[in-house]
C-alpha cells in the first residue's frame, strides 16, 4: 500500500529536489567556511568561486569543453573495449581466470604514475587522455557487465538453450539485456572516474582542460580558481551522471525499481 506524494512522483520534483540538494550543500559549505572561519586559501566560499568564474567565464567554459570531450571520448572507448572483455570473461572460465589478475594489475596501477609514460608514447594530443580515461574506468564496466551477465536466472538461460540458441544469441538476446541495469550501475561508477581520469591526464603535457586549470592555479595558490575548476568538474560529472540516468530510464522501461 504505497502512497505517493507530490515529492516522490511528480516530474518537476524529480528535477527540483536534486537542485535543492545541491543548494543545501552549497549552503552548508558556505556556513562551514564562516562558522569555522576557514581560511580562504584552504577553502574559498562559494561566493569567491562564483566571482572567480565570472572573471573569465569564456575561458573556463572552453576548458570545460576540452575536458568534456576527452571524458566522453575515453568513456566511449572504455565501453567499446570493456564490453567485449566482459563477454570473453563470461564466455569462458579459463579466460576469466587468466585475464582477471592482469586486469586487476592494470587497474591498480596509480594512474598519476603512468601519465608521463602515456604522453611519451602517444604525444601531446587527445590520445593519451582518452587512454588514461580508459585505464581509469574500464574496470567497473567490465566487472559489472560480467557479474550482471553471470547472474542471469538459470530458468531463462535454460529457455534459450532449449531453443538451441547459439552462444552469441544467448549472450546478446538474453544475458546482455538482463545485465543492462547492472551495466548501467557500472557505467555510473565509471563516468565519475572518467572525469577524474581526464583531469589526471591533463596534469601532464596538456595546454587546456580543467585539469590544467586546476594544476596551474593550485601551484600559484589561487585556491578560488582551483575550486572554480573543481566545481565545473563536479557539475560536468553530475550532468553526465544524470545523462546516464535518463538514458537508462528510456532504454530500460522494464527495469522498474521497486522500493
Amino acid at each position, binding site marked *: 500500500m504505497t502512497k505517493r506524494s507530490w515529492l516522490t512522483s511528480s516530474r518537476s520534483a524529480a528535477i527540483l529536489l536534486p537542485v535543492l540538494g545541491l543548494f543545501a550543500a552549497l549552503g552548508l559549505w558556505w556556513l562551514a567556511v564562516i562558522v569555522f572561519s576557514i*581560511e*580562504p*586559501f*584552504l577553502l574559498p566560499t562559494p561566493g569567491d568561486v562564483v566571482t572567480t568564474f565570472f572573471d*573569465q567565464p569564456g*575561458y573556463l567554459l572552453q576548458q570545460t569543453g576540452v575536458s568534456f570531450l576527452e571524458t566522453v571520448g575515453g568513456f566511449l572507448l572504455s565501453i567499446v573495449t570493456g564490453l567485449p572483455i566482459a563477454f570473453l570473461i563470461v564466455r569462458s572460465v579459463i579466460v576469466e581466470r587468466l585475464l582477471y589478475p592482469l586486469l586487476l594489475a592494470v587497474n591498480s596501477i596509480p594512474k598519476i604514475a603512468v601519465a*608521463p*609514460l602515456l*604522453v*611519451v*608514447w602517444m*604525444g*601531446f594530443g587527445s590520445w593519451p587522455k582518452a587512454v588514461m580515461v580508459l585505464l581509469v574506468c574500464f574496470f567497473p564496466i567490465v566487472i559489472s557487465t560480467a557479474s550482471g551477465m553471470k547472474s542471469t536466472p538459470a530458468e531463462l538461460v535454460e529457455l534459450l538453450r532449449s531453443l538451441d540458441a547459439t552462444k552469441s544469441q544467448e549472450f546478446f538476446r538474453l544475458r546482455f539485456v538482463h545485465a543492462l541495469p547492472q551495466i548501467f550501475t557500472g557505467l555510473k561508477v565509471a563516468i565519475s572516474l572518467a572525469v577524474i581520469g581526464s583531469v589526471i591526464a591533463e*596534469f*601532464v*603535457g*596538456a*595546454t587546456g582542460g580543467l585539469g*590544467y*586549470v586546476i*594544476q*596551474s*592555479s*593550485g*601551484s*600559484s*595558490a*589561487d*585556491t578560488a*580558481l582551483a575550486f572554480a575548476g573543481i566545481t565545473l568538474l563536479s557539475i560536468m560529472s553530475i550532468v553526465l551522471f544524470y545523462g546516464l540516468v535518463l538514458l537508462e530510464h528510456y532504454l530500460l522501461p522494464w527495469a522498474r525499481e521497486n522500493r
Partner: protein
Amino acid sequence: NNDKAGQNGDESLQKITYLTSFNTFGREAYAYVALEKGYFKDAGFDVTIKPGSGTVDVLKLVAGGQADYGIGDFTAILITMGKQKMPVTTVGMIHQRSMAAIVALKGGSINTPQDLAGKKIGDQPGSTNTVMFPLYAKAAGIKGWETTKFVPSPPPALPQLLAAGTVDGIGQFVVGVPTVEKADPKHRQAVVLPYGDKLPDLYGNAIITRSDLAKDHPDQVKKFTSALLKGLQDTINDPEGAAKILQKYDPKRTVDGSVAELNLMKPYVKPDGFTGELGEADGERVERILKALENAGEIKPAGSLNPADVVDRDLAPKG
C-alpha cells in the same frame, strides 16, 4: 630529421616542441617572448610551447622524443641522470645561480639559516632543496642541521601547508615567494633563505635537448638556444612587456604576478658580478657540482657521471 612542414603553411620552418619547466608561470615568460617576437621563426623554427610538469617529466618527454627542448632544474637533472642515464644533454643555462631556497613566513620560528635546526620543512621528496640541504647547511654553518625534518608533499600543496602552520618552512624556488605570500591569509612577508647565497656554484634551470639532436644538428641547436636566450634577455630587460605577452598566451596569468616573479628572477639569470655570456655553462663549475653531489651521496658510485654526459659545452654559449 625534423622536417615536418610547419603549421602556418610555411614549408621552410622546422617544427619544434618546447617544454617549460613547470606550467606557464611568470618565470617561463621568456619562451613566449621569443615566440611572440618571432625570434624562433627568424631562426627557422615553428615552435609549439607545452607546459611541463617538473624536471623529471620534462627529461622523460625529451628523452622519449615527444619534445625537442625542455627546461629543468640543473641539480635535479644531474641527480636523475646519476640514477638513470637518458639520451639528453644540457645545452645552456637559464639561471646562473640556483633559485632553490627555504621559505618561511615572518613572525614564525625561522628567520635565519641557524633557526632551521630541528624544524619541519615541507618539500617534494627528492627535490633539489631537500637533496642539497646538507650542503647548504654545512656552507651556512647551521648547528644541529641533522635534526631538520623534511615532510614530503607535492609542490602545489606547499604554500597552504606553510600558511596553515602545518610546517615551519617549505622548499621553494625564490620566484615562488609571491605565491607563498599570496597564499597567506595574514599577508605576512616571506623569509627567504636562498641556497644560492651559500652555494654560488649551483645553477638554476637549464636548457636540455635530445643527445642525437645535439650530436647530429649542432647548428640547429645553437640557433634555437640563442633565439630562446634572446627572449630571455628581452624578458629581464622588460619584465612588464614579457608579462603582457605571457598573459596573451595564458589569460590566467596576471601581469602583476608575472612581473613580480620576473623581477625576483633577474638576479639569478645575471647575478651581481656575473660577466659571462647569458646562458653560459662553465665546465669547472659543473665538475664542482658533481663532486658535491657525490660527496652528498646523491650520485653513486663516485665518477659514474662525467660532465660530458650531461652538458654539451660546445653548444652552450661561452663567456
